């Protein structure tokens, strides 16, 4: 091939490449939105003067050093200080955080499991797996037709409100107790687990389920004896992933005033930056450990 022939061929190929107007317009919208976000965020650094900001920053970063160390200049003194913070509330808060997250994720998993069957595109219809079992029409047929979309939309709705917001609203209704936090996490994760687990059961091949349904089992039995056990491992992967996220979120929900790390962080904010940093790092360390162990667990489950 000569150079010109190659050039024309390349041009031709370039012209033939798939073009998608929807994607182009989406990209354009995103691009414009990003420019708009930066241009209109004025003043970008806030209204404080530069010198005030610098003062703030200095005070803040000085405050981050543990108070005994600030006095003596010796980092050894930070150890008893940290131990005291850990035993005086820190540890309890950590355990409470984990407890709330665990209760919430199990609760939402327990609700999602039965509902999930109703959201399945292949099971929740008049003719599951394309197998017709007689004439069904009228309201029953319509009922089967709209059940799946309604449940799936329910998933979208419940995951669209951030858990922090749900917790805030529920706290003002139910008063200061643990339930609002658990419920908030459970409601939000109901939608997310519904979507993630839904994907799993849509992607699992269903020959055994088809077989069982064809041989006369009900939808419920097919779901419980074939679809569920086959997808369980991947369900657990997502379950642990969400559990991990729940712990992180539960930490922060404490900022609304209940005894998780978030509350301690909120209480020490403004006066004891060193304590605040300690609690932040405590939570962070815990999540790092969780992260490592869940990566390990995920590898084993796969």
């Amino acid at each position, binding site marked *: 091939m000569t150079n010109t022939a190659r050039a024309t061929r390349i041009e031709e190929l370039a012209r033939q490449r798939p073009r998608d107007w929807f994607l182009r317009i989406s990209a354009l919208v995103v691009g414009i939105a990003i420019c708009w976000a*930066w241009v209109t965020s004025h003043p970008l650094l806030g209204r404080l003067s530069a010198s005030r900001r610098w003062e703030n920053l200095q005070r803040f970063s000085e405050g981050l050093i543990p108070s005994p160390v600030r006095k003596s200049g010796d980092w050894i003194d930070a150890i008893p200080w940290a131990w005291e913070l850990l035993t005086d509330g820190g540890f309890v808060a950590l355990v409470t955080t984990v*407890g709330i997250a665990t209760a919430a994720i199990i609760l939402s998993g327990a609700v999602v499991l039965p509902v999930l069957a109703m959201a399945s595109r292949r099971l929740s219809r008049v003719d599951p797996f394309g197998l017709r079992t007689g004439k069904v029409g009228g309201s029953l047929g319509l009922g089967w037709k709209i059940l799946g979309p309604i449940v799936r939309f329910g998933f979208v*709705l419940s995951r669209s409100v951030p858990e922090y917001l749900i917790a805030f609203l529920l706290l003002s209704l*139910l008063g200061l*107790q*643990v*339930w609002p936090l658990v419920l908030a996490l459970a409601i939000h994760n109901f939608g997310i687990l519904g979507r993630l687990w839904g994907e799993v059961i849509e992607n699992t091949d269903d020959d055994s389920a088809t077989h069982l349904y064809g041989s006369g089992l009900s939808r419920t039995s097919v779901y419980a004896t074939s679809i569920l056990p086959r997808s369980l491992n991947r369900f657990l992967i997502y379950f642990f992933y969400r559990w991990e996220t729940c712990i992180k979120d539960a930490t922060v929900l404490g900022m609304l005033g209940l005894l998780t790390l978030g509350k301690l962080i909120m209480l020490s904010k403004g006066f004891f930056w060193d304590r605040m940093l300690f609690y932040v790092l405590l939570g962070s360390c815990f999540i790092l450990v969780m992260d490592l162990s869940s990566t390990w667990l995920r590898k084993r489950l796969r």
Partner: protein
Amino acid sequence: MPDPATEPSYYGKKRWVFFVLVFVFLICAWALGLTPRGLIPSDVNQWDRTARFFQAALHPALDYEDVNVPEDAEPILVKGLKGILLTLKFAFGAMSLAVPTALLLGFFGSSAWWPEPCGKRSKALLRVVYAACRFLMSFLRSIHELIWALLFLSAMGVSPLAGMVALALPFSGTLGKVFSELIDEEARDAAEALKAIGHGPVQTFLVGILPRAMPNLITYSFYRFECALRSSAVLGFVGIETIGLYIQLSNEEFYYREVWTYLYLLIAMIVIVDRWGAMIRRHLQTKEGGCI
């Protein structure tokens, strides 16, 4: 179907998962004092408030409930839409910082581009960079965006940049981790071919691996954008002006109908973005990427 007689442990294991989870739940409920009674509002006041809250869901406010709002104030719907725009603004700003950072972190936290015949010393260096990037990503995402926001607002004062950076940090950690995994999972045949005809490692990565992983990267970024929207709404609770701030203020005054107006706007925005994402996914022909 596997024969239970030949696979005795098969059924037992799966059943135990449920038993253990129920048991763990009961322990947690006991330890936290979660009783069914806690779910029922305790006195007449609370009953009244709860009833009012849920009734308000049917009649979201189209006008301010607060009588002290000045006559010339903008209508509540305009204010709500402005809140939505501000929420979008922080999410877009944060993602425009997070995605490039994540690409960089994801690149150094992935082994796909490592040159194959590689000296001992440079391999050790690559390993160190790899481990450092992975750790950095884990650390960034181990702190919740609200706490990052709290730290940044304390250090820098309330400013748009602080909010965006606070959102961008944990998001770049998560995005980077998933990017590196998506890149590592992509088939390497094109890259091998390019390498065989003498391309360098970085060229191979940019031409052979990255374009192939691109649809998945875009899909995942868009999903995270949705998450960023939610987080951005919540930033309102630490004092940055987004829809969350309006919800908080209205709720504190018990203007539940206003709360629902804002909530409906927020839900509508998220549902629309969710549908947009689904369409992008369909056009890119990628599967719904899980969030791991």
